[in-house]
């Protein structure tokens, strides 16, 4: 296994280093930086969902007193076919630039068309209204089926998915994978379920709107401050969108009030940079809530057809899944994940999985917590539950019979290492929640979920301070308690108190490259970099102690924060205070591309009670069980389980993007875009299962995304059990439930 089987710090629950500032209002978020001489940017947005821009006249705005800069899409790079990044985070430049600002054509309502900067926010807003834009308005299409119809308005005349002839269509991508021979495998099935399920487009609902501040110096260098899940990505994308050398851009990440995948790209940042360059003044930009909903990347709505076959004794023998996803106006690549991962929880030797995505006149979709998997899992898991009922098996027993384990391969081909899905199912089966009686009138559902979890690039720098404290710099914005986790891991290796370790999220010029905080990778991969840096520190301290004692370094042992040989010892503090005389400053930097990742699995149990007269659903009990590998700081693992469950509850019951006929969003605010409030929720019982990841020194597996995968099917099943009516289209809001109950 590893050298740290007996953990001293890992698994404890100290107060997070950033906690006090957050609860006392002192933490500095995206909109909290103010610079001397700062002016304010404001974006001009399209009132149409589909239009050709025939002219933009900024002259009246620029002539206003106090207006110092104006810009349009002409001030940004004209993208060709460049790709930004690779692997999970890959994005085509032509899909990034128009989400910052349109160039000639508008493809969704509220798309940015111009921006101004002025000496006050009010003046900037007024100047934005003075920008004159003329449009040739085109018909808009917001529904995926209508977008695929023969008479649909075409969004892109120059984009053709692989394998399709070059004729204009709104089909963005089409990916299909097959293992074995699913068509003939269905012949072996005694029971076949074939149903269609749907999930609406929704938003991540992060509380902090996008915000940034930019300044440009006389030599053309640029500094950016912004709330983001990845400031190295902000640097990369801002450079690509503006044409400024990446090396001339420094980005500092502020504290972040939620991201959930939605803050892994740029919207305002390149605009603030261009306006700062043009005006010669620092420029601050803050998006309002309505524009966050209207013009940043939501999660795709999806329709999933699922066909499953099983033998009478409950063995799953064949699957055919087809997921149709809404890409929005540009390619957000939502279709690959369902194709690759829809069947990932189940032993299936004969299966086909297809993903298609479609352009519509809506903002380009973006990542939201286990992107695209909750949508397809609603269908797959509900179909599994329906199948289990058909063969007369308990849904957990059915899953235990068919769940993947070590050595099984999924659609992507590679066999699983040691995973914890069966352990989670067994914990669920034996949990008091599952064994308890369901209350009269309520129903119970359960479902499981998978996420691949990312590794990617991380760096860390560990500086030993003369008083024996340590600063740890990483480039991973802390969206879920990662600074606490980094400090715990360093504390474990170094053997010094948690409180002596000061973790920070460093700017792009202060630490090695880090990919975004996303893919549930930070504790795993950035944590690995921190562990390695701390191990290098220990090795160097042992070497210095050995030199002092004139012995071979190999004979010096490190324990309890000190080097030992025989009855001699030198503490961390002594070695830190004498560093100058013993070899110089103690600084350790590590960088890596982590290949230690392990997939995550979770099982959720939900009790729901539907008011049969009003159609309101109350979640009365909820248990989220997940294999965390090893929980570094259990509070934040539990927080991830609870938060994911809550977001899934919102998506299942009420969250939904509502577009009108003209293609404008009807509910761009938290009043009518209904994320749950605290009183809507029961206590979410989080149960951590620990099946250590054999590839990681501390056994860590990513945990942040899996928890949003099981809720929708678990809740839909609970609503069915409460009402006796099978709902396959979300959200399960009161009007929909009452309409179905009255029909019944």
């Amino acid at each position, binding site marked *: 296994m590893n050298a740290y089987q007996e953990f001293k710090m890992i698994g404890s629950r100290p107060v997070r280093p950033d906690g006090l500032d957050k609860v006392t209002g002192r933490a500095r978020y995206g909109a909290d930086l103010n610079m001397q001489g700062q002016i304010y940017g404001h974006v001009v947005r399209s009132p149409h969902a589909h239009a050709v821009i025939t002219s933009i006249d900024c002259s009246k705005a620029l002539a206003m007193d106090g207006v110092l800069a104006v810009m349009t899409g002409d001030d940004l790079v004209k993208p060709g076919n460049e790709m930004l990044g690779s692997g999970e985070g890959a994005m085509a430049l032509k899909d990034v630039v128009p989400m910052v600002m349109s160039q000639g054509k508008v493809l969704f309502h509220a798309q940015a068309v111009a921006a101004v900067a002025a000496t006050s926010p009010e003046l900037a807003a007024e100047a934005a209204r003075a920008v004159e834009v003329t449009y040739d308005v085109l018909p808009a299409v917001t529904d995926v089926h209508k977008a695929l119809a023969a008479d649909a308005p075409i969004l892109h005349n120059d984009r053709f998915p692989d394998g399709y002839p070059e004729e204009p269509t709104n089909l963005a991508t089409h990916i299909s994978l097959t293992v074995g021979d699913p068509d003939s495998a269905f012949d072996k099935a005694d029971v076949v379920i074939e149903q269609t399920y749907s999930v609406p487009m929704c938003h991540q609902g992060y509380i902090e709107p996008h915000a940034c501040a930019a300044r440009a110096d006389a030599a053309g260098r640029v500094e950016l401050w912004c709330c983001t899940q990845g400031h190295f990505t902000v640097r990369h994308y801002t450079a690509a969108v503006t044409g400024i050398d990446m090396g001339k851009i420094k980005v500092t990440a502020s504290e972040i009030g939620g991201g959930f995948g939605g803050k892994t790209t740029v919207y305002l940042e390149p605009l603030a940079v261009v306006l700062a360059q043009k005006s010669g003044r620092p420029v601050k930009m803050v998006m309002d809530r309505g524009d966050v909903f209207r013009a940043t990347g939501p999660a795709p709505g999806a329709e999933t057809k699922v066909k499953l076959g099983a033998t009478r004794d409950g063995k799953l023998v064949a699957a055919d899944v087809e997921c149709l996803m809404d890409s929005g106006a540009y390619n957000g690549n939502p279709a690959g994940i369902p194709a690759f991962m829809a069947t990932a929880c189940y032993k299936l030797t004969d299966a086909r999985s297809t993903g298609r995505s479609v352009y519509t006149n809506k903002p380009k979709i973006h990542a939201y917590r286990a992107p695209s998997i909750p949508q397809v899992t609603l269908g797959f898991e509900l179909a599994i539950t329906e199948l289990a009922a058909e063969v007369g098996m308990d849904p957990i027993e059915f899953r235990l019979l068919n769940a993947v384990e070590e050595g099984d391969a999924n659609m992507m081909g590679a066999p699983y290492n040691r995973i914890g899905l069966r352990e989670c199912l067994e914990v669920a089966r034996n949990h008091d929640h599952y064994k308890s009686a369901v209350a009269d009138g309520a129903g119970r559902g359960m479902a499981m979920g998978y996420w691949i979890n990312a590794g990617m690039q991380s760096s860390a720098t560990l500086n030993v301070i003369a008083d024996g404290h340590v600063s740890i710099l990483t480039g991973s914005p802390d969206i879920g308690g990662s600074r606490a986790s980094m400090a715990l891991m360093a504390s474990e290796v170094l053997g010094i108190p948690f409180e002596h370790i000061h973790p920070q999220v460093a700017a792009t010029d202060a630490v090695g490259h880090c990919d975004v905080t996303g893919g549930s990778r930070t504790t795993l991969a950035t944590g690995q970099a921190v562990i390695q840096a701390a191990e290098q520190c220990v090795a160097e301290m042992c070497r210095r102690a050995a030199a002092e004692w004139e012995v071979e370094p190999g004979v010096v042992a490190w324990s309890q924060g000190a080097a030992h040989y025989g009855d001699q010892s030198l503490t961390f503090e002594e070695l830190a205070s004498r560093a100058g005389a013993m070899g110089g400053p103690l600084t350790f930097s590590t960088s890596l591309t982590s290949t230690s990742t392990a997939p995550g699995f979770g099982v959720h149990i939900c009790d729901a009670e539907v008011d049969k007269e009003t159609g309101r659903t109350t979640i009365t009990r909820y248990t989220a069980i997940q294999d965390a590998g090893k929980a570094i700081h259990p509070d934040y693992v539990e927080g991830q389980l609870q938060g994911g469950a809550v977001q899934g509850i919102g998506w299942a*019951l009420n969250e939904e993007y*509502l577009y009108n006929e003209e293609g404008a969003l009807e*509910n761009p605010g938290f*009043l009518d875009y209904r994320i749950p*409030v605290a009183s809507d929720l029961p206590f979410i019982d989080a149960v951590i299962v620990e099946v250590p990841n054999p590839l990681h020194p501390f056994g860590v597996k990513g945990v942040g995304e899996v928890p949003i995968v099981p809720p929708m099917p678990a809740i839909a099943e609970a609503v069915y059990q409460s009402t006796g009516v099978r709902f396959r289209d979300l959200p399960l809001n*009161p009007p929909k439930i009452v309409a179905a109950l009255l029909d019944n």
Partner: protein
Amino acid sequence: MAVQEFISPTSLSEAQLVVGDGAASSWLAGGTDLLVGIRLGARDPARVIDLKQIPELTAIEIDETSVRVGAAASAFDVLHNSDVPSLFPGLAEALNLIGSTQITGRCSAGGNLCNASPAADSIPALIANGAQCRILGPDGERTLAVEDFVVGPNQNALASGELLVELILPRPPAGTSDAYLRLTPRTEMDIAVAGAGVSITVDESGTCTAARVAIGAVAPTALLVEVAAQALVGSQLDQAAIDAAVAAVRAAATPISDKRGTAEYRTHVVGVLVSRAIANAQARIQEARS
């Protein structure tokens, strides 16, 4: 155009004087609708006149015949008054549903009424309790029933220069109680898809001797449904009477379908709410007697 002028008169006569010049003004009570409207660009007053420094407008006074609630008295002050919540538990329910705790500290029943949203929570509860509006204008005073005060979505009966001074609720007779219920997808921080305010009087024999039934969010304005009340009066509040009242409110409802719910759903659920509100009021009367 931003707000050019902010005035805080300290008496009714000063307030009257201020609006005398006829410039576009908005009265400011709690501001929980006005300030949001200004920020969204839906409202654009040149002048805002704060009412909270006028003693009559924030006073809550109770005598033997009536309860008088100043138009700018905060929902929090009404909810924490020593008598009002027990006299009108349904009105208290309605006020307590307006926004968060922070909003409840600012908003007022008078402001909720003047804003005249079809979905306002306090309006059906005020109508159910027979509340009257005392209005002061350049030509003197007048009184108007709450059900006549709202004339359309976000339109009230105030003429230019007129000010809602207070709401006057008759003290409920013995054996009377009220209840307010609304349907929202969320438990709070939401806006009514339908609402129902009911006040009933029940004698010792269990016979309903008086009733007022009001519904919200199912028509351009909150409605007093007299047919529903007539179905209850004289009955033992038996199932047939309740069913007749439910049918009456469903017949009176003329809702729209919008992002918050379909017309069919609203018509259905307003009946459910009325039925449950009657049961709640009846239970309160029984509890007071036992």
